[in-house]
């Protein structure tokens, strides 16, 4: 293995940060967070199948400060990953590679993911 001269990727600590690299690594991280949110959904259903008392306990945890923080974080991660995923699909079709376009679409995704998270949460909790 020591004589393998293939380039290694990606070197996060070495490259200068750009919107493109920031979104690239955030896409990966949010994907991994989404995996955890699927696992949360798994426990949600397990708690539900364990009967009323266990489910009430689960709801207590979910509605605590930390629980809400996690759920909001997971929501943002999901929305970000989907929006960024759409950007990737557009790239796969061969559009949007110009540096200016890519930067603009990156900024649009960051802002709209935050706004959508707030709207999603307010609607879901019945606050608006």
């Amino acid at each position, binding site marked *: *293995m020591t004589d393998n001269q293939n380039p*290694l*990727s*990606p070197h996060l600590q070495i490259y200068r940060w750009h919107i493109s690299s920031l979104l690239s690594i955030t896409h*990966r991280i949010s*994907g*991994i967070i*989404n*995996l955890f*949110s*699927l*696992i949360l*959904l*798994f426990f*949600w*259903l*397990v708690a*539900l*199948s364990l009967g*009323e008392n266990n*489910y*009430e306990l689960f*709801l207590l945890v*979910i*509605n605590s400060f930390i629980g809400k923080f996690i*759920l909001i974080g*997971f*929501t943002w991660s*999901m*929305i970000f990953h*989907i929006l960024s*995923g*759409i950007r990737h*699909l557009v790239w*796969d079709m061969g559009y949007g590679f110009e540096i200016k376009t890519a930067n603009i679409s990156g900024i649009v995704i960051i802002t709209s993911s935050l706004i959508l998270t707030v709207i*999603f*949460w307010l*609607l*879901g*909790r*019945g606050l608006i």
Partner: protein
Amino acid sequence: MNETRQWILHRISAIILAPLFFWVYFSLISLSKKNYQEAIYFFKNPVFEIFTVILFFVGFFHAKISISEIFEDYIHNKKIKDVANILALIFSMVIPVIILILFIYKI
């Protein structure tokens, strides 16, 4: 599975997942304010059951491909990478199957 097919399946699973994830997440947030009876009533809906099971199978399929790609980038020891890939594969099959069993027998 050859790489091109894997690439295409990864994109197809993404397109299936986006609306499902959106919908399930919205339901979860609204469920977090509701009690046990309402939640049971909600999950008893066959449309929700089927979509949730699809979400788990397709979601873990998508996750398995992505995770393997991340392993490819960051794990440079082939043996460790192989073991990690096998563990990811087992994990990505066991959880959806448990969910399927839960829906059939428990909820």
